[in-house]
Structure formats: structure tokens, C-alpha cells
């Protein structure tokens, strides 16, 4: 960063700040994220991509240090491709999650990646979060990142069993928007990945809250 170099202060490493959200609905999972990347108090990427491909049927969202989330998800994706060749089968979602937790635990939390991983396999739809130290939670709705509490309050009020696909997706979008508007580390647009029995659908920049008019609301 030019200004920080002049001040003689080293720039903080690039983090994804972030609000990431996963919502299980009937028959699938919706993974939603914001698109702001920060280095300290500066926005370095206004429209970054926090969705990571793991397999055709498994996608992952990453919060924490951007380099770590990219590296971990890429490594696990390659490991699982090899597993796919060895077994000749579609990769189960739990294989991805186990690979992530084993990797992160080995590094005792020094790999600062907080992930939400979801997908659909022969046993159904799965959603789990993986914490930097290697623990996992498997729940119907999850949030991670600096905007997680803002998003969580939306999900606590709106989630119920038996959501349809569109209900799940719009709930996830509303949760990310709560993070975008109420958390400084999150902002810009909402990206969504929807995985269900029919396949995977990606909606990049599906909502751009900055361009909506919200009247008296403060951004």
C-alpha cells in the first residue's frame, strides 16, 4: 500500500473480513458470501470471489486470511480429485470436510482459514463449518467471518425446517446483506452457489445492495 509504505508501517496481510453463510434447504444447500477483501482498514478488492471449487458437487466458502483459504481449498480440491480417480466414485461431502479438518489441525490453527463447506452426494445434502484449529460443526445453518453475528441474527429469526430452494437462497442473501450493512469488514455484493440434486448453480453478484435505494437507511 503506497500510503502505508510512506508512513513506514508494514501493511497488514490481506484478509477476507467477510460474511459467509450456509443454509440447508429441502434437498440441497445454498452457500452465500459477500465480496469485500480488506488489508487492515483498507478495501483491497471490492469484488473478490470467496467461493472455492472443491468438486462438481462440493463448494466451499472461506473467511480469514485470503492466502490460507485459497491454498487450503485448492489443496483439498486436488486431493479429492485424486481420491475420485482412485475410487471411481463421486466424492462424498464428508471426505472434503475430513480432509480440511485434518489439514488444519495439523497446523494447530496457524493456517487461518475458517470455512463453510457444503454439497450434495448419494447420502443427501450436507453443510459443515470448519474452524482454523480443525473442529467442525454440522448444522442446518451456519455463518462465519467478522459479519457472522449480524448474519446469524437474521438466520435465527428466519430459518425453519423444510425451506424450499428459493426460500433458502433468499434467507441466505438476507443474512449476507445484514453482514454487508452492519459489519465494517464485509461489503459490496452477494454471491451465491446453490447445490442440489440437479447440479450446481452459481450466481455471481446476484444482489448488489450498494445500488439499491434504501431511503433513510445508513450504509
Amino acid at each position, binding site marked *: 500500500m503506497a500510503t502505508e509504505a510512506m508512513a513506514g508501517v508494514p501493511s497488514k496481510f490481506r484478509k477476507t473480513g467477510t460474511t459467509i453463510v450456509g443454509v440447508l434447504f429441502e434437498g440441497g444447500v445454498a452457500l452465500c458470501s459477500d465480496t469485500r477483501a480488506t488489508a487492515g482498514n483498507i478495501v483491497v478488492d471490492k469484488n473478490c470471489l470467496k467461493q472455492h471449487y472443491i468438486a462438481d458437487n462440493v463448494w466451499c466458502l472461506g473467511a480469514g486470511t485470503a492466502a490460507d483459504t485459497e491454498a487450503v481449498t485448492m489443496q483439498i480440491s486436488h486431493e479429492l480429485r485424486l481420491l475420485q480417480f482412485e475410487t471411481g466414485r463421486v466424492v462424498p461431502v464428508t471426505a472434503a470436510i475430513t480432509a480440511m479438518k485434518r489439514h488444519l489441525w495439523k497446523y494447530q490453527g496457524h493456517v487461518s482459514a475458517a470455512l463453510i463447506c457444503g454439497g450434495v452426494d448419494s447420502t443427501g445434502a450436507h453443510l459443515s463449518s470448519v474452524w482454523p484449529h480443525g473442529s467442525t460443526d454440522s448444522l442446518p445453518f451456519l455463518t462465519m467471518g467478522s459479519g457472522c453475528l449480524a448474519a446469524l441474527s437474521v438466520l435465527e429469526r428466519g430459518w425453519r425446517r423444510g425451506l424450499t430452494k428459493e426460500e433458502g437462497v433468499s434467507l441466505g442473501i438476507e443474512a449476507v446483506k445484514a453482514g454487508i450493512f452492519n459489519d465494517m469488514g464485509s461489503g459490496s455484493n452477494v454471491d451465491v452457489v446453490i447445490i442440489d440434486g440437479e447440479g450446481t448453480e452459481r450466481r455471481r453478484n446476484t444482489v448488489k445492495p450498494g445500488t439499491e435505494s434504501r431511503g433513510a437507511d*445508513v450504509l
Partner: protein
Amino acid sequence: MVRYKGIRRVTAYDNGVCLGFSGDHADFQSIDDELTNMIRQDQCVDDGVTMGAKSIYGFLAAWMYQQRNEMKPLSVSLVVAGKDDKGEPFLGTVDQLGTHYEAPFVATGFGNDLALPVLRKEWTPNMSELDAIRLVEDCLRVCYQRDCKASNSIVMAKSTVDGVQVGVEYKLQNINWQ
């Protein structure tokens, strides 16, 4: 407060002001004592002018800031509600640094992270009393679900044209533990 059940975090004064707090209970008791005496003195003077919510809020802001400057902060976040000098509804907050502002809705503690996003989305200027109570209850429910130290017993104090009252303590229903 789960450790000592039945501790009230809101109180009301004769002059129509409600005060809520989050933080050190001892400091709140000290503030409560001081305000009670101040309001009683004000009534005794009996000059036809009584302190309203805005005056109390201004006093608390000045007092908290002074304490902070003397390195003896009162470790509480306060919410002051009532009527201002013109009789309009008033809501303000003061924290241990002396930071103070008025707003249509405020929150302390975990409420800053969990309740404010909900309030920012759902509050409207012409809400009915029932809608406001439901909204506050909803926020408290989310806070109870996600704050380990919260309990589901709540108390509400309200200030309206008819005066001020502290409600009975009751338990939140429909908690979602899934």
C-alpha cells in the same frame, strides 16, 4: 443475568424516565442512588420545572465522561428513555467513555452485534407499541439463543404519554434450540 436470577436491569423514576444498563451492577446501583436523590431534590424545590429524560441523559453523559477523565470509569452502558423537554419521545445511550448519542433504537453488549442489524432493518418511525414490543422481544430471543450468559427472563420498562412503568418479569417463548 444467569448467575443471580431476578436481577433487574431496568428501572423507572417518578419524573417519567426509564434507565436500563449493561455492565457493572455496583456502578449501576451507585448511579441509581445518585439519580433518585437528584430527582427527589428536584421535586422538593417545587418550582414547576422538573428534569426530563434529556436532562438526565445530559447529566449522565457529563458525569460518565468526567469519571473517565479521572481514570475512575463507571463500567456500565446506559440506556435512557422518556420524553424530552418538548414532550417528544426520547431515547439515548451513554457508555463508560462518555460516548453519548440519541437514536430511534439502541442496544448494549451482545445486542450491538445481534440486535442492531435486526432493528436497523425492521424499525419504522410509526410503529405501534405492540409492534415495538414484538420487535424488542425478537431481538432478546436471538440474544438469548446466542449469548451464553443471557437468560430468557426479561423485563420491559416503557415510557408513554400516560407515564412510565416497569412491567412484570416474564419468560421468552418459542426458543429455537436447533
